[in-house]
């Protein structure tokens, strides 16, 4: 039995799920608490959640511009060298008659990154400013962002596969271009932004500080 007095908080471990009871006095001390079962850090909120989320969001928004403006791939054949942007690749699929794939790539490469940035910005913005607004819907929005986020890696994989496969020297080849690095950066940074945001902030009552 512990000797302390005062209120306790119940914390769930994000990794193994075990529920621990922690004296609120212990949470205020600058000590890193660990889950007694698996050793994962336990904290009532992910540390510096909003600051980190905003930082990743700003970085991914900045990278989003070169990711779309610069070519992500160039192809070479006997007669010409041509560069392809993300939008250009989608247009090629569409004109080739692969409408289904064109829509999938459009959603994965254009819609998902924009939706992620906008949704996470909305979530991070509403936590301090509109804490009670549509909580269940915001919670669901976060779960959707978390689930679909990694699909934007699609175009990165496509270029990697094409670079490996179309490799006939001067007759025909495909090469990655700098835009791809920016695009991969957007994907990784938005996944990190989603991981930094703590959905528990949505449910926090305004009187608690976060």
């Amino acid at each position: 039995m512990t000797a302390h007095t005062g209120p306790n908080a119940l914390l769930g471990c994000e990794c193994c799920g075990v529920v621990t009871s922690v004296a609120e006095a212990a949470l205020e001390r600058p000590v890193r608490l660990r889950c007694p079962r698996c050793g994962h850090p336990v904290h009532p909120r992910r540390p510096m959640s909003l600051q980190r989320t905003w930082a990743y969001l700003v970085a991914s928004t900045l990278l989003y511009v070169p990711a779309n403006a610069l070519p992500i791939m160039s192809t070479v054949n006997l007669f010409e060298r041509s560069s392809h942007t993300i939008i250009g690749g989608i247009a090629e699929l569409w004109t080739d008659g692969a409408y289904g794939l064109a829509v999938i790539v459009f959603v994965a490469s254009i819609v998902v990154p924009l939706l992620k940035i906008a949704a996470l910005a909305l979530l991070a913005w509403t936590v301090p400013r509109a804490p009670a607004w549509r909580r269940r819907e915001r919670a669901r929005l976060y779960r959707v962002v978390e689930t679909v986020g990694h699909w934007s890696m699609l175009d990165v994989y496509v270029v990697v596969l094409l670079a490996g496969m179309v490799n006939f020297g001067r007759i025909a080849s495909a090469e990655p271009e700098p835009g791809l690095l920016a695009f991969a950066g957007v994907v990784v940074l938005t996944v990190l932004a989603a991981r930094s945001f703590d959905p528990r902030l949505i449910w926090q009552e305004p009187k608690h500080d976060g």
Partner: protein
Amino acid sequence: MAAAANARLTGALRSRSGAAERLSYSAFGGTFLSSSENPPEVTALPQDLVVCEHCDAVHRWRALASDEVARCSRCAAVLGRGHALSAQSTIALTLAALFVFLIALLTRVVTIRLGSTETATTLPDAVVATWQMGAPIVATVAALTAIVAPGVLIVLRLYLLLPLATGHVPRHFGTGMRVLHEISRWSMVEVMMVAAMVSIVRMAALADAAPGVGMFAFGALALLMAALETAGVRHYWVDRS
């Protein structure tokens, strides 16, 4: 699979109640951190409680039937699923995933013919080619998310599950579970399968392309990984004790 692994809310005990019974660490079987690593005010509670990791609401577990899904009463996030997979079927699925993963890596994803030349590429070849063409960072990201992360997920699951099935607790169990938790979001094999389809169509302008065994292997791997993901890993903690 222990019934206690599955849960359903039976009432919303709100958080921040300190009323629940306290247990010492040793009540869970002895592999807990020593109390010197945590202040004395940190106490593990009985395993019939579950805190929603999305909103902090506290619920009480109860056994779930195989098709039931427990959702949080406050934010509707999934708290747990009742699943029909026994430990043996999970091992079988994981072994299947291992073989399919090796096939996906070692066989050609796409075969291309240009005139009389025919080339075939596996995913590791494509990653190496990308690296050599001056995009090492992109090549690394692709290798980590499509090769390393799924590989570690599969091997680690086997490392943890096989001893558990025979009643042993593998060494470094806690560390393994934490790695599994951290790495699961970085495995993106299902995206790779769609990427292979897209690349075949994109390549049609340059050369004749046909899908290889590797592409179908990635499709099968995506399904197997999804099934394993749904089955979850948290109940390993309960299976262990």
